[in-house]
């Protein structure tokens, strides 16, 4: 027959009660007890109560005498049951006096203490910050003890230790820097592998060890690269990018550019490029489709009432996007001058911080590298970017409606990457078509 031992615990009769007093035992060891028969009476701060037996069986032990006060959940008695009674014992859910078998008595074990910083032999006080900087800078306690302090009572201040670390980095002689001052590992600050590595005794055998020539080089990313990296990742995560590519016949613009090349350069002092033509077309299209000249904030669309036309410029440091401010107020020559000024100052590193602020739309001309079709990433928080492919002579069908003929034309592929959260294919396509139309029918009178 299956036997089981049931532990009876001091029940918690109120949510704020922590203990109870055993007033009277109704059973003594060896007595039989039926389930729900009164086993004992207890008294607490709030109530006095009779406690029924959780199971039927034989009382084997009473662990506390009457009038003893015991913490709740302490085992106070044991009952031996027979057979299926064990199942019953845990059945009534409101029976708080059965100790749940899964819960073992708590034993508190202290978590291992973190390694202690050895007390400074001098008894000098070091602030948490100073100890932290020392640990990070690989400065041992004996070395720290050598640093003169300018703080209260000769304390080493943040300023003192930072100056010391800085000087040490530059290789200036510093007190106590020699490894011989701190040879013992015990006197270094624990949990700082770099310190120990620095002070470790080097086996002479290691010096002759041959290492293979390095297969790679580790470069620190410049600020500009880090910013570009962060921005590009954020942009791709923020905007669902969709692209439209249109073919654009640049023959007329090319012809205008050639016709005016000499006169323009003489008058303005710089070469007439494709860029102002594209900027001009972009500004006009943005005014026609203001939603492309906007940004998104939460569930709001911010329509910009001005055009800040960003021009992606490759410099030796990386990609920079200066902005033509109020581009909608400028005529063709004004645009050309601003493009030239921004590009020149980008390359000569004379841009001001304000030159790269306030963009509402961006143009990137990767055609100069021979790229035919590019897929640019949006310059956040803008919602679209125009990419210009290389202008190249190609055989194309012209006058298609009149039977058609094949002619050699200057063709470029323009790509619009747009944010499909608010710009759909219809708007993106129409916007790009407007730019193409403007370029293919460029009004020569605008140049002068």
């Amino acid at each position: 027959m299956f036997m089981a031992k049931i532990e009876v615990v001091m029940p918690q009769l109120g949510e704020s009660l922590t203990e109870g007093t055993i007033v009277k035992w109704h059973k003594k060891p060896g007595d039989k007890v039926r389930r729900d028969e009164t086993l004992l009476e207890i008294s607490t701060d709030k109530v006095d109560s009779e406690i029924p037996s959780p199971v039927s069986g034989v009382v084997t032990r009473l662990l506390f005498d009457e009038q003893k006060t015991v913490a709740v959940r302490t085992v106070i008695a044991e009952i031996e049951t027979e057979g299926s009674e064990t199942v019953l014992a845990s059945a009534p859910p409101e029976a708080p006096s059965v100790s749940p078998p899964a819960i073992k008595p708590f034993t508190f074990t202290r978590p291992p203490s973190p390694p202690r910083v050895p007390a400074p032999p001098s008894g000098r006080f070091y602030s948490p910050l100073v100890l932290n900087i020392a640990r990070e800078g690989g400065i041992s306690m004996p070395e720290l003890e050598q640093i003169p302090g300018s703080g209260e009572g000769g304390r080493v201040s943040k300023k003192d230790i930072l100056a010391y670390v800085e000087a040490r980095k530059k290789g200036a002689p510093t007190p106590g820097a020699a490894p011989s001052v701190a040879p013992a590992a015990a006197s270094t600050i624990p949990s700082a592998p770099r310190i120990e590595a620095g002070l470790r005794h080097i086996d002479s055998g290691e010096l002759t060890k041959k290492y293979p020539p390095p297969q790679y080089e580790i470069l620190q990313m410049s600020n500009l690269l880090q910013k570009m990296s962060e921005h590009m990742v954020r942009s791709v995560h923020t905007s669902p990018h969709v692209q439209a590519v249109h073919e654009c016949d640049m023959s007329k613009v090319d012809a205008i550019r050639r016709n005016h090349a000499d006169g323009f350069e003489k008058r303005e002092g710089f070469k007439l490029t494709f860029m102002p033509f594209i900027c001009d077309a972009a500004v006009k299209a943005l005014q026609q489709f203001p939603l492309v000249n906007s940004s998104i904030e939460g569930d709001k669309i911010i329509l910009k009432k001005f055009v800040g036309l960003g021009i992606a410029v490759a410099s030796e440091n990386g990609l920079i996007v200066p902005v033509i401010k109020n581009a909608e107020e400028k005529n063709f020559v004004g645009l050309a001058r601003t493009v030239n000024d921004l590009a020149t100052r980008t390359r000569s590193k004379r841009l001001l911080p304000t030159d790269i602020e306030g963009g509402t739309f961006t143009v990137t001309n990767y055609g100069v590298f021979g790229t035919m079709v590019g897929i640019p990433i949006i310059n956040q928080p803008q919602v679209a970017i125009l990419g210009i492919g290389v202008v190249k002579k190609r055989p194309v069908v012209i006058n298609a409606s009149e039977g058609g003929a094949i002619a050699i034309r200057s063709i470029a592929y323009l790509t619009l990457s747009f944010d499909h959260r608010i710009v759909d294919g219809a708007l993106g396509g129409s916007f790009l078509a407007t730019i193409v139309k403007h370029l293919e029918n460029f009004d020569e009178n605008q140049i002068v």
Partner: protein
Amino acid sequence: MTYLEAISEGLREEMRRDTSVILLGEDIGTYGGAFKVTKGFIEEFGEGRVIDTVLGEAAIIGAATGAAIAGMRPVAEMQFADFVTNGFNQLVNVSAKYYYRNFIPVPMVVRLPSGGGMHGGPFHSTNPEAWFFHVPGLKLVAPSTPYDAKGLIKAAVRDPNPVLYFEHKYLYRHLKSEIPDEDFIVPIGKADIKREGNEITVVTYSTGVHWALDAAVAMEKEGVTVEVVDLRTLLPLDKEAILNSVKKTGKALIVHEDTLTGGIGAEIAALISERAFQHLDAPIKRVASMDTPVPYAPTLEKYFLPNTEKVLMALRELAAY
């Protein structure tokens, strides 16, 4: 625009914007309020929205709570912050807990003209913010400038929780500045760096900001730059702003006009030592009023209150540490 006018203007704009915004308080109607914050309001919005109440804060706050539960956006004025104690039970047991029990928001504002420096004596000069700082379910704001005063009263009216708005009586007419005309709010829960610095952080709010800023100017002449963090919102605390600044400077001074023991500064000091201990290069210091009721005699009141000189002395101690 003065600090007082900024509060007034903010309230007026919110009342024009949203007809569910109503005002309750003692003598706020025809009389225009003890400090004239609501002057002209009854003429513009009528008795139905600018309600003169009985002299009983429990009734005012209770009625405001009920109105908020029913869907209005009441703004209750305590004539002096000191008197809020009469409505304490309504605030901490009803307004603050209501949403937790019933899932019905209580979008109300209680305006508390607080603080000393004007010889108002022990019953008209209290800064009672710490009593409520301990109450989950409330939000506490304490602007230091006209801009923040306007932006925070508007944010408080729009907030779905009970917001206690501590407006400092000394700043009412002592501060004046340009405020943009357009509709703006100052977000609740965001501190503001009023001055940047590298060596010492001052965490403060309300009048403390001005003592700290004056002391920071003096410290700069002594070669020490001080960063002034204006909490603006006391509950919920902008912990990140406090910790970021202290991690940068390594030294922290907490300044408030409320008395020292058990004040908001104690919680901030605990926060810093729990979460920025490794960055501390000096003990955290506090400058606050002395642990007595606000004295009536002007000389004693001056002795009792913090001021620029006391802040400066604490900053010098920290700088030299």
